[in-house]
């Protein structure tokens, strides 16, 4: 299989959460459009970065793909199979091939379980270890794969540092040999000097095992470093998608430009000469997104059309697409 193979196809994905009110009779008074029409593909062996500020829907998109929350509408195709309407039992074999690594290495590991149980539990759930010896061997090799020592298997999560706990979470995710791993802010809770260790581990594992990643984070510098392509999200939509080099060299969407400009570069000489263009305001509520282009309330280049017409995603060639009226032919 030398042709790039599409691991995941997401088409017009929507996840709306109902907002209820009323003391005696609860009724729906609105909805939070957490994800509101998101489409993208992910190729085998690729890392797609999902980046955006809080409330942009990046984490919800990840959870919806794994079907850990209900999809309102749209299509999620995993390895050619449309899983958007699958129920729990039909999702079970799919989940073997799709795993998740969470942000909080403290909250996501059961403190009462030994590392060997945490890492090996998926093997047991899916009946993949025939006997104790096979189980132990597999756990040892998983720990080795993430750079932990075999004798750590008998310890409990509290005995580990944040970086080591994240390695345990990764080992657990790898246990079932998944093809896709969704990483939700996997390094944001770690100290700066530890982040690089974990980022490198993700990259090494991808090369060794041919893994496909969706890497969700708010830190554009980290996302750009690890991802081959990046989708920038704002209020439930993808506003721009581009290969990592192009995204920084020539960001098209004003929001991407603002996001890049907001992130300081760790070099005072560079910072002294960088234009400081800071956009105003904060992300509006996802319950009442602005009409037209959702970014128009904060956009430095807003035009009349932006206030009423929602810009469609436009293919710009070279793997780039942008949803902005500035780029209409």
């Amino acid at each position: 299989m030398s042709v790039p193979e599409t691991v995941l196809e997401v088409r017009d994905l929507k996840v709306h959460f109902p907002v209820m009110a009323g003391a005696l009779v609860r009724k729906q008074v609105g909805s939070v459009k957490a994800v509101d029409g998101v489409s993208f593909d992910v190729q085998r062996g690729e890392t797609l970065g999902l980046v955006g500020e809080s409330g942009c829907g990046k984490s919800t998109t990840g959870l919806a793909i794994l079907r850990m929350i209900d999809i309102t509408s749209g299509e999620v195709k995993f390895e050619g199979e449309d899983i958007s309407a699958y129920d729990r039992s039909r999702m079970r074999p799919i989940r073997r091939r799709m795993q998740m690594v969470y942000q909080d290495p403290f909250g996501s590991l059961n403190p009462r379980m030994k590392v060997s149980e945490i890492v090996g539990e998926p093997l047991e759930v899916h009946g993949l270890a025939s006997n104790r010896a096979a189980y132990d061997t597999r756990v040892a090799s998983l720990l080795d794969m993430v750079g932990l020592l075999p004798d750590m298997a008998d310890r409990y999560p509290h005995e580990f540092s944040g970086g080591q706990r994240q390695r345990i979470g990764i080992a657990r995710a790898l246990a079932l040999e998944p093809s896709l791993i969704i990483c939700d802010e996997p390094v944001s809770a770690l100290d700066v000097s530890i982040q690089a260790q974990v980022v490198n581990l993700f990259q090494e594992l991808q090369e060794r095992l041919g893994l496909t990643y969706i890497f969700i984070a708010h830190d554009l510098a980290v996302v750009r470093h690890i991802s081959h392509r990046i989708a920038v999200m704002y209020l439930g939509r993808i506003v721009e998608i581009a290969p990592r080099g192009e995204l920084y060299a020539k960001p098209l969407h004003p929001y991407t430009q603002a996001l890049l400009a907001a992130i300081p570069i760790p070099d005072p000489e560079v910072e002294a000469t960088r234009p400081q263009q800071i956009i105003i305001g904060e992300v509006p509520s996802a319950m009442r997104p602005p009409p037209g282009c959702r970014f128009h309330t904060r956009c430095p280049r807003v035009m009349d059309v932006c206030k009423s017409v929602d810009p469609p995603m436009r293919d710009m060639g070279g793997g780039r697409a942008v949803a902005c009226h500035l780029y209409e032919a």
Partner: protein
Amino acid sequence: MSLLSVRNLSTEFRTERGVVKAVDDVSFDLAAGETLAIVGESGSGKSVTAMSILRLIPNPPGRISAGEVVFDGRNLLEMSDAEIRAIRGNRIAMIFQEPMSSLNPSLTVGLQIAEPINLHRRTPWAAAMDKAAELLARVRLPDAKSRVKAYPHQFSGGMRQRAMIAMALACQPQLIIADEPTTALDVTVQAQILALLKEVTRAANSALILITHDLGVVARYADRVCVMYGGRIVEAGPAREIYARPRHPYTIGLMASVPRLDQEAGSRLVPIEGSPPNLANLPPGCAFAPRCRRAADICRQRPMLVRSTPDHLSACHFHAQLSAHVGT
């Protein structure tokens, strides 16, 4: 003549596992109008240093065990409680990381900003409230006039931090200490708040101590930098100098381990191996030695913070050799 001079400051905490030195022999100076960044990871002692300056260390379990903090000619550590209270929020103001937990949820924002003006300046409440509205406008809170009567929960995270800055500015302090003021905020809001903080401190010629873990924030806003590790300052100097010619292996390691937007993507980062130290169990000598590629026998002796060049300090036995290496 410096505005603030911290000399050999040590702060310790009594814990189940013995006495932990969170800040160990820290010294630095700050001139009027200057922005100093204190950079470090969790447990480096950067926040405890900031809290110690204003004597905000809970005692017990904490205790400032040694040193002096000379502010405008007087040692804050020798002042009476009444005297230090007259300094806090008046001549030295503090901005915390989590604006929601530092604002009183049951008082209006305006009242909380007016309080220090009423307290320290003896301004009548009505006039203090007018001043609060003025300050909210100065930190560019939209609809400042009507928002004076709002409660903190009616504000977004960015608005709350603007209110905190307004409160800090209320008595025109000579020094503002901001402890990770934007860590809880979104990227674009973070840029707004930091730019605002820099702008208002510059306009008032206030000095600013910015506590952060973000090397990018330091590069954009700081004049000078102290890098902390394991409760100690390991390197200090002008920001440009530190970034161009770092003279401590920890600083060098940190810079190599963060991805930069302006660099070729896809290359491997060079991480610092191991984890930040446990303060209850620091290695003898240099706290960074167990993670340091250059560590040698001599590193079992504690390196002093020495002048590598007239304005650049490093606490590494090999600081002279390091300077020759960087830049190649």
